[in-house]
Structure formats: C-alpha cells, structure tokens
C-alpha cells in the first residue's frame, strides 16, 4: 500500500484528520491527533491498516507547557506512521496501549520515569530506567530540569562510615 493510499484511507475514515496527515518522504507518514480521538485512530491503524509493530514511543517536552508523545507504528518494516498526540504539561496522562502492542510496556515505563507522564492501565512492574531511590518529582527529560541540585541519592557510607574517596558525600 503506498503512502498516498494510506493517507487517503486515514482521511476518509476520520474526517478530523484532514490536513493532519503529512507524507514526509517515502516510508514516513506523520499524523497529529488530539488525545480524545487518539484511541480510535490507534486501534484502526493497528487492527485494520496492519500497522502491527510498534517500533518505539518517543516522549518530548515541547516547551510552553506542552508535551508530545509520538507512537512510531511500523507496517511490515516498510512504512512508518508517526502518530503524535499533544498533552498538557500540568496533567500529562495517556492510556496504555499494551493490550494492542505488548512491546509498548517498556517504552511507556520510560515515559513515566523520564518525563513524568502518567500511563494508566500499565501492569505493575519495575521502573525503567532510573533507580528505585530516585527522588520523586524529578524528571530528567523535562526542559526545566537542569540537574539534580544535590538531591539525587548519593553514595551513603555503610554503617555511617564514609567510603574512601567520598568523605564529603552527604549521607
């Protein structure tokens, strides 16, 4: 299926996608969706249009209080559909897509850890990639996060004895 046909099918099925689907080049299509309409477009792309593989999920901080989450859907390795959805920075929340794409699990955990986006419906499990004792509320990939300002867990000396080379490290 060529890129033009894919674009046509999306625009025909979802009228609100008119002018929101762009063909960047051969094998790359981008589409912008709003959060409320995201689920139906995603499910349609995965189930009816055979974009069966989810290659990655990218989360980014656009600045000006907007987050964006891009789902890179892959059709037989040949065409990539980048479905992006905008979120409000003050309350970033998405629903999990693991029921359609089980491999989304680890990408969504990355969103939670590094950007603080809440993913609803995710099964319980280890966080990734940060440590368990990473301080709450510190999301490294946000634009306004400029370093740990001494709050990240340092190396504590066991039983109160500072480890050699780290005598100044706060306990």
């Amino acid at each position: 299926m060529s890129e033009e046909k894919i674009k046509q099918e999306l625009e025909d099925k979802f009228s609100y996608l008119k002018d929101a689907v762009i063909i960047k080049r051969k094998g790359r299509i981008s589409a912008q969706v709003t959060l409320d309409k995201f689920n139906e477009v995603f499910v349609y792309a995965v189930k009816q249009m055979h974009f069966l593989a989810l290659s990655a999920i990218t989360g980014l901080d656009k600045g000006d209080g907007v987050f964006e989450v891009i789902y890179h859907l892959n059709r037989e390795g040949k065409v990539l559909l980048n479905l992006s959805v905008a979120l409000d920075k003050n309350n970033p929340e998405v629903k999990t897509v693991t029921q359609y794409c089980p491999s989304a699990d680890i990408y969504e955990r990355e969103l939670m850890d590094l950007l603080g986006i809440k993913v609803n419906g995710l099964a319980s499990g280890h966080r990734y990639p940060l440590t368990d004792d990473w301080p709450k509320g510190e999301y490294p990939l946000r634009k306004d996060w400029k370093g740990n300002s001494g709050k990240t867990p340092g190396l504590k000396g066991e039983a109160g004895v500072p480890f050699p080379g780290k005598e100044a490290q706060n306990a």
Partner: protein
Amino acid sequence: MHESGDVRIPIGPQHPALKEPESFLISLRGEKITASSVRLGYNHRGIEKACEERTYTQCLYLIERICGICSHSHSTCFAQAVEEVAGIEVPARAKYMRTLIAELERIHSHLLWLGVAGHEIGFDTLLMYTWRDREVVMDLLAKLTGNRVNYGINTIGGVRRDINSKQKEEVLKAIDILEDRTKYYIDLAKGETTLIKRLQGVGVLSHEDAKKLDAVGPTARASGIERDVRKDDPYAAYAELDFKVISVNSCDVYGRTLVRLGELMESFSLVRQIIRKIPDGPILAKSSRKIPAGEAVSRYEAPRGEDLHYVRSNGTEKPDRVKVRAPTLANIQSVSKMLEDRYLADMPIVIAAIDPCFSCTDRLIAIHDAKDRGKNTVVWETIRLKGIEWYKDRGIDFTSLNKKLTKLF
C-alpha cells in the same frame, strides 16, 4: 507462572555468564524455569539529556559511544536523521564508505557473537578461534578508520576519511581469509552433533510470538519473519547493492546461529561489491552548524536488529530532542517468553542468543551470587554484616584497612 514453593534466583548484574550488567529474576521449580523478569537500567547514563546540551557534531561522538560493538550503527543512524532534517544530500562515495564500514562492523559483531555464544555453552575453543579471526577485521578497521573500535568516521554531511587503492586490495585479501574461516564455522554448525544438540530447541520464540512482541534482527529472522531494514527501507548505498535476507524457520537459538552465519557470507559478498562499485567523487557535503527546525526518524539495520533514532531540531546548533531505540530493547521483552519452561542451564545461551547490548538499551544510565540457592530468603545486608563481624572476631577490621589502602595508592 511463579507458584509458591518455587525458588527465586536473581542473576546479575554481575555474573560470569553476562558480559554486561542486567538483572534477571528467575523462578525455578527444580531445574525448570517457571517465570522470569528482567530489570534493566544499569547502563543508563543520561545520553539523551546530554545530547540536548551539545552541538550536533559533539553529539555524534557521544552517540557513537552508546555502544562499542555497534558504534558505527548509532553514529550513522544519527547522522542520517540530522541530514534528513537539514536536507543535506550526502555524496555517493560517502554513502559507499559508510556502507563498507557498516558491513565490516557487522562481520566483527557476528564473529564476536559466535565466540560469546561458544563461551556461554562451554565451548571456549570456539571463542578463541572466532576472536582470533576477528582480529583480521579489527586490523582492517584500524587501517581504514584509525581505531579498532569507535571509528569516528562519520560527520554530518559525509565521512571523514577516504579509501585508496592499496587499502582496497587489503580489504579484498582479508575478506578472502575470513570467508575461508567462516565456511569452517558453517560446517561446524551444520555438522557438529554436540553443538546442534546444545542449541536446537532452546530459546524457542514462535513466529506469532515474535510478531506480537515486535522482535527485530536475527532473533526475528530466525522465527521466519523476513524483515531487514536494509531491504525494506534502504539507506546509505544498500539500494544499489545485491544481497539476500537470510531467514530460517526453526525459531530457536540454532536458527539464530545459522542466520548470523548466513549474514556473514552475505556481508563478504557486499564488501566485494562495494569495493568494485564505489564511485569517485567528494566524501563530504557542506553543512552549516545550525540545523533548521524539523524532525526525522532514521532506521538502520544494526548487527542486532533495527535501530531507530528520532531527532527533532529547533533551528539552533543543538538538537531539541534525540531519542534512541536500540534493537536490544525491542528483543529483551521476548526473553521472558523464550525462557518459559526451559532449564536453568540454558539461560546464558538464550540471553546471549538475542545478542544483548545493554549499553545500547539503557544508555540514558542484587549482587547475588548465583550460588546463593538457599530456601530461606536472607537479605544481602544481613549476610554482609555477618561477614564483617566474622572478620572482626578474628581481629580484621575492614574500615581501617580501606583507609590504609587509600593512603597507599
């Protein structure tokens, strides 16, 4: 599924079978694995955030060091993404150079894997043989790029070094030697009964599971999924070169071995084609420091599978967002599936069969001895304090020793 009565064993992050830190929690009933889970993140270094504070060329050097084994993959993928955003047309000779180094890297990575796989199943001779052969490729790469690992040959707009006719002859000679030796390994894989018995039926990932869990690279190609970014989404010079996508249907570690051996033979043929067909011309296109605003997704077939880079620029000389999805992150989720109902002894080779590269995976940044197989769960801290007390009773105190050693060195 884990049931009560099953023993939980943590494996990693330091373990003789694992070359990199990652931690697996395995539930065992006797010798059979009933459930497993992976904990990653030990290699998370904060690269994606660091990229936002560096210029594109500085980023290139950082991205190259995501992984030492597939360093060229990451740097080419990133350079391609930036060139797509900026609309820079890379000259044909540069594309061929990139492809040449890419195939040499694939050769070195697959030979490395063969050795590591041999080591994991206890066949150390294979490790020594393949790594001795690998030195041929390393010498070649050092001659062409200046370094054995982390070649630094890419730059935004092309490559930094050219190849002359003497080097071309050396490449062809080396490929002849390697092809000879690879044929020996293929005979070994097809004919040696102990190897076949050890690898066949192990780490099975069915065709449907591989599709559902989005496996990539040789792991997927061994389960019958014929997907290769070099054919599906050609980049660099692959559109003009002739090669086959190797895939088998055996779905197990033996299949992955055969796929990688087949890919080695294809790489030799590709290198010969490149040396024959490389066009004359410049190796670098001019590019400005500031990249115009835009975004691009670039895909690359690394030796381990599909590598995906997403780059967004904002018109300055530093990128706005760089996202790297390494192939091992896509494959690691199928490891739990592969380990189901297998024996503990198969664990190292199953994990090694996806050719894990956790430094590619975590890159952003429970020493448990596998021998601690007691039925009671004792917290490590208790064991450790017990050990310290045991020594203290015998007059040895670690704290003062540590201080003395620091003064010594």
